[in-house]
C-alpha cells in the first residue's frame, strides 16, 4: 500500500466507482426499465424504503438474527478453534472435516434446521451461525497453531499462569489471523441469514427481496440489494481496515 501518492490512490478508487456506476447506468439503459432499475431510480426507491415503517421492522428482524448468529459464530468459532489449535491431534483430526464442511452447500441442510428449530428467528440464527462458525474456527485454529514456539517458551520460562499466558502471549500473537477469520465469518453469516430469510420466512430483508422477486417489483429488488450491499461493504471495509492494521503491526514487531 505504499508508493503512489494518496491523491492518486483516492482518485483511482473514485474513478473505479464512477466507472461501475456508469456501467450500471448503461446496463439499465440497454436492459430497459422493467428489467433493471438505473442508479438514480434505485437511490430514490432506497430512500423511500429507508423512510417506511414497515421496512424498519424487516431491518430490525434481520439485524436481530444477524446479531445473534454473529455472536454464536464468533464466540463458538473462537472457542472451538482455540481448543483445536492447542491440541495438535484434535486439530489434525478436525481440520479436514471442517474444510469439507466449509465447501458444502449448506443450503441443502436448511430443511433439517427448519425441522429442528421450526419456522422463525431461531432457525435463521442457527443457519447463519452454521455458515459463520466454520471459517472462524478454521482461521482461529491456524492462528493458534502457527504461533511461534519461542513465544510459548518465553511464557513457560516466565512461569505465566494459563490466563496470563493467554492474555499476554496467545491472544496478541494470534489476533491478526483471528480478525481475518471474523471478517470472512461476518460475510458468510450475513449470507446464511439472508438465505434463511429467503426460504420459508415472512420477515426480514431476505423476505422483502424474495417477495419483490415474486411480484417482479424490480425497483424494490434493486433498492434492497443496494442497501444490503452498502451495509455489507461498510462493515466489511471497517473489519478489513482493522485486519490490515493488526497485520502490519505484527509484521513490524
Amino acid at each position: 500500500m505504499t508508493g503512489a501518492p494518496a491523491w492518486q490512490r483516492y482518485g483511482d478508487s473514485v474513478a473505479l466507482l464512477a466507472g461501475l456506476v456508469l456501467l450500471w447506468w448503461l446496463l439499465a439503459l440497454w436492459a430497459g426499465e422493467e428489467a433493471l432499475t438505473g442508479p438514480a431510480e434505485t437511490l430514490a426507491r432506497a430512500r423511500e424504503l429507508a423512510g417506511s415503517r414497515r421496512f424498519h421492522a424487516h431491518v430490525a428482524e434481520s439485524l436481530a438474527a444477524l446479531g445473534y448468529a454473529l455472536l454464536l459464530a464468533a464466540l463458538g468459532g473462537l472457542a472451538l478453534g482455540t481448543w483445536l489449535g492447542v491440541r495438535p491431534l484434535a486439530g489434525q483430526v478436525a481440520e479436514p472435516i471442517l474444510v469439507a464442511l466449509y465447501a458444502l452447500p449448506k443450503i441443502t441442510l436448511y430443511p433439517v434446521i427448519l425441522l429442528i428449530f421450526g419456522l422463525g428467528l431461531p432457525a435463521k440464527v442457527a443457519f447463519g451461525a452454521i455458515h459463520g462458525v466454520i471459517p472462524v474456527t478454521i482461521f482461529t485454529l491456524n492462528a493458534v497453531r502457527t504461533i511461534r514456539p519461542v513465544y510459548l517458551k518465553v511464557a513457560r520460562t516466565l512461569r505465566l499462569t494459563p490466563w496470563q499466558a493467554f492474555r499476554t502471549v496467545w491472544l496478541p500473537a494470534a489476533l491478526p489471523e483471528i480478525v481475518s477469520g471474523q471478517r470472512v465469518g461476518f460475510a458468510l453469516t450475513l449470507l446464511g441469514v439472508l438465505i434463511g430469510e429467503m426460504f420459508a420466512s415472512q420477515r426480514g430483508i431476505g423476505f422483502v427481496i424474495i417477495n419483490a422477486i415474486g411480484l417482479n417489483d424490480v425497483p424494490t429488488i434493486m433498492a434492497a440489494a443496494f442497501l444490503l450491499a452498502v451495509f455489507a461493504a461498510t462493515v466489511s471495509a471497517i473489519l478489513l481496515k482493522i485486519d490490515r492494521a493488526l497485520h502490519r503491526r505484527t509484521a513490524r514487531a
Partner: protein
Amino acid sequence: MTRAGWIRVALVAGAVAALELATRAGWIDPHTIIPPSAMAAALAGLVVSGAILPDIAKTLSNVAAAFVLSVAGGFLLGLVIHAAPRLRRALDPLLATYYAVPFFVFYPLLIVVFGMSDLPIIVIGFLFGVVAMIIATLNGLDRVPRVALKVARLARMDAVSTALVIKFPAATPYLFTGIKLAVAYSFIGVIASEFILSGAGLGYAIAYAYNNFDNPRMYALMLFILVSVTAVNMVLHTLEQRMLRRRGLVR
C-alpha cells in the same frame, strides 16, 4: 493412513452410528431426521428408478459450466488486474468485501438478460466462483520467481506464451487454492439458486421434497449432495498433494 486419519474415520463412523441409534431408538422424532440407513436406501431407490437422474445431470452440468467459466475467467482477469497495479489497488477493497454481497438477488435481472434457461444459474455460480479465483491468481502471480520472468524476457516470449509457459506453472500451488474454492462456490451458487429460485435441479428437488413433507426423498438428495461434494473435494485434495509433493513442497 496416519493416526489422525484413523481417528477421523472412527469419529465420522461413530457420529453416523450414533445418529442411526438415536433415530432407531426413537430419541429423535422420525419427522425430524430419519436413520442414515433409511437415507441410503431411499437414495439407492431413487437412483435405480432413475427418478432423480435428470436433476442430477442438470445440477452437475451447471456446476461444471460455472466452475470452468470461473476458473478460466478468474485466471484471465487475475492476469489483467496483476498487470495494472493502479487498477488493482483501486479494486482491492471491492475484492475483499465482494463475498459480503449476496448475488442471487440479481437472478430476476439475469433471467431478463439471458432468458429462462440454465444460463442465469450458471452465471450466479460463476459470479460466486470467479472472485476467489481472481484473488488466488493475484496471490500466485505475486510469488512467481523474478528469475523465471527474466528467462521469459531473454527468450523473447510474447505475453500469451509467458502467461501459459512461465506464469501459470509457477503460480500453480496458489491457483490450486483458487480452484478448490471455485468448485465449492460453484456448488454453493448453483444449488442455492436452484433451492430458492429455480424450478429444476437438485436444490429445487430438495426444497420440493421439504414442502411436501417427503423426508426420505429429501434426506436421500441431501446425502447425494453431501457425498458427491465430499468426493470431488477429496479428489482435488489428492491431486493437490501429489502436485505439491512433486515440487518438494510437502514431505
